[in-house]
């Protein structure tokens, strides 16, 4: 059955992944005006935490499986609540 749900967009860009990880609590909130700069290590750790929470292989890389999952419809509440 053709559904009207959002068809997963192709691989998410690194930037989009960063704002996704920030939106859902894996990275500190970024200040759009200051273009928050983070280390690769921080990004790898955030991706790993997301992969673990979502039950994906934990690679720390923004691989296709991970960026596809990031494109799926979901709840807007953070996964990690302080």
């Amino acid at each position: 059955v053709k559904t009207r749900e959002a068809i997963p967009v192709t691989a998410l860009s690194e930037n989009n992944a960063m704002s996704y990880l920030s939106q859902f609590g894996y990275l500190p909130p970024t200040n759009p005006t200051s273009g928050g700069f983070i280390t690769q290590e921080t990004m790898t750790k955030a991706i790993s935490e997301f992969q673990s929470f979502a039950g994906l292989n934990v690679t720390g890389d923004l691989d296709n499986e991970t960026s596809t999952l990031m494109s799926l419809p979901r709840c807007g509440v953070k996964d990690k609540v302080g």
Partner: protein
Amino acid sequence: ASSDGRSKRYALQGSRWRVKKLTYKISKYPRILEKSAVDKDVSRAFSVWSEYTDLTFTQKRSGQVHIEIRFERGEHGDGDPFDGPGGTLAHAYFPVYGGDAHFDDSEHWSINSYRGTNLFQVAAHEFGHSLGLSHSDVKSALMAPFYRGYEPNFILDSDDIQGIQALYGQQTLSSSGSESTDTKVNSKTTVPPPGEEDTQLCSDSKIDTMFDSAEGHSYAFKGDHYWKLTTDGIASGYPRLISNSWHGLPGNIDAAFTYKNGKTYFFKGSKYWRYIGKKIDGDYPKDISEGFTGIPDNIDAATVWTGNGKIYFYKGTKFWRFDPAQRPPVKSTYPKLISNWEGIPNNIDAALTYHGYTYFFKGDMYYRFNDRTFSVDVADPAFPRSTAYWWFGC
């Protein structure tokens, strides 16, 4: 197991409702569905949670409710804009933040259909947040963050059941005495256990004082009686006589607080008493002028302010700060005007610190104070709020 080695399972945000009889209203409906159909699906989404607890959910058409539901598009006033079709479908606020649930009205909401996005499943998930559940990393759980498409034979995952019962306990015996989920209808109509709703406090919720004991229990004093507050409202078996529990303590107490030394101080007229728990701690009463030099008699309220841990006394239009570590304990710059506490009225009845906030009570209303902005907290619904409704479970 998760990356931190713990087993995968539900997560609690840390707040929950103090009462179990919750109300909700749908302030803004989706454009593309019949209102009556939305009412039915939303009610079904709430019953996912009432099925396994003593929670009950009553829809109201207007007025103050616990959970407000809105279908909105884009920016909608909470600083967390929706993003059009797909992506974020909805979000909800945990009880400590008000409990409301917002749905992205750009989505193609549907009921009992493989097409579009299923309203019932998303709503049941969001109401889990409204009740205090965070996201679960159990993929099959309703509280997992990702929408899994229409599930015609939806059943709540055991992980979700464990989570909601960790917050609100299991469903107790229904009125018929049998314990089974199909008595939900009965359990919804059972009279709340005695003491959960107190006629005296619900008809007149003005109190003499309220304080937290060193054990962390909250008590409300009124006349010769007192009530113990629980997370759900009033503990059963109350009211009780003050003098039966705190021997030697009279009724009609003006104020009370528990200091960081674990001792509780009661004030009435020109006298004060000191207790450890419910045991008097020495030869009391003593004169306030003796033990709290600089503090007047006949005070209205007293509390240890969460902002700085000092003791504050309130009377009429003025307040005093008492610091036992200072000499003199009350600086000559006091008293000052209560109007400095932006939004707090004069002649208050009681003040209480609870879960990191300071609350002020006057008549049948109360105020939550924001220590950072040094003013009454801005929230929805706004303060002052009904004490009976939010504290006494009426």
